[in-house]
């Protein structure tokens, strides 16, 4: 694919697992991946940032708790405040919640078991950096692989998330029906991903970076990366 020129940084924390896959997905979709380091204060001028999946700091204390306070998170917070696109995937979502950039928290799956399978998501909002090219109601297939992916929030947070349309993805059937059987982990309201008020910070438990190359499985992550690269490029041109 022709390079769009968008430079996307992927942060590696001690214990990150999916940083390489995220970089590969950026390349596959026509962007330029830039490896970033958790202990650095340098975002290297990237146009978007991805916090990848894994088990940062061994998930000690709580998933994402220590990574949420890492040196580079100060820069990512400032980048997000300037409107820069930030995507947190799985552990990255947990890190964004722990750092206060997104509302809510992720706790142990309702089944108490680690779940690894492909699921369907219904797009709830196109007002984000990763769904700008999608339609609400559209469904995509992507894998999940997590033990602590049950989204919870305080009553006030939930009212705001739902009231302001901040749910980005819900677990659903392939036809887009949001029901109990399509909820893999017990997340409240089948919530798989949420956004901040401006829509430039997004977190989700499923893994779009594992779902871009048709040779290795479903391709439901392509639209998210295409949107992220397009949004990143707009920012770069601004």
């Amino acid at each position, binding site marked *: 694919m022709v390079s769009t020129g968008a430079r996307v940084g992927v942060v590696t924390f001690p214990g990150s697992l999916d940083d390489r896959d995220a970089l590969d997905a950026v390349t596959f979709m026509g962007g330029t991946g830039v490896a970033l380091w958790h202990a650095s204060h340098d975002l290297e001028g990237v146009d978007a940032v991805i916090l990848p999946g894994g088990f940062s700091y061994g998930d000690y204390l709580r998933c994402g708790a220590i990574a949420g306070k890492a040196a580079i998170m100060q820069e990512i917070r400032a980048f997000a405040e300037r409107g820069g696109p930030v995507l947190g995937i799985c552990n990255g979502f947990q890190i964004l919640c*722990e750092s206060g950039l997104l509302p809510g928290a992720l706790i*142990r799956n309702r089944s108490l078991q680690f779940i690894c399978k492909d699921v369907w998501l219904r797009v709830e909002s196109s007002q984000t950096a990763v769904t700008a090219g999608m339609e609400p109601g559209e469904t995509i297939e992507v894998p999940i692989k997590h033990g602590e992916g049950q989204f919870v*929030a305080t009553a006030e947070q939930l009212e705001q998330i739902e009231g302001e349309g901040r749910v980005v993805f819900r677990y659903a059937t392939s036809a887009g029906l949001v029901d109990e059987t399509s909820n893999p982990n017990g997340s409240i309201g089948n919530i798989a991903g949420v956004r901040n008020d401006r829509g430039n910070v997004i977190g989700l438990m499923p893994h779009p970076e594992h779902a871009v190359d048709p040779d290795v499985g479903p391709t439901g992550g392509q639209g998210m990366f295409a949107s992220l690269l397009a949004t990143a490029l707009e920012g770069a041109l601004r």
Partner: protein
Amino acid sequence: MTFTFEVLVTLKAGLADPAGKAVEAALPTMGWTTVHDVHVGKHIKLTVEGPDETAARAQVEEIAQRLLSNPVIENYRVLDQPEA
């Protein structure tokens, strides 16, 4: 001066506590059949430098709020009588 504190972090009521459940499930096989509502939390011990205990405790309270616990899912308590 240094002051040692202990912080207890517990899951809020109603949240899944698989560690507590696993312990509870092990008890009947050992003969304890009347134990219910078992919960497992975290215990964190810290030694803090400060001019006095009040200042040191205030620091620990802030650490407990901002790092050791997540207010969405957990409660914390700084113990009154820390171990020497």
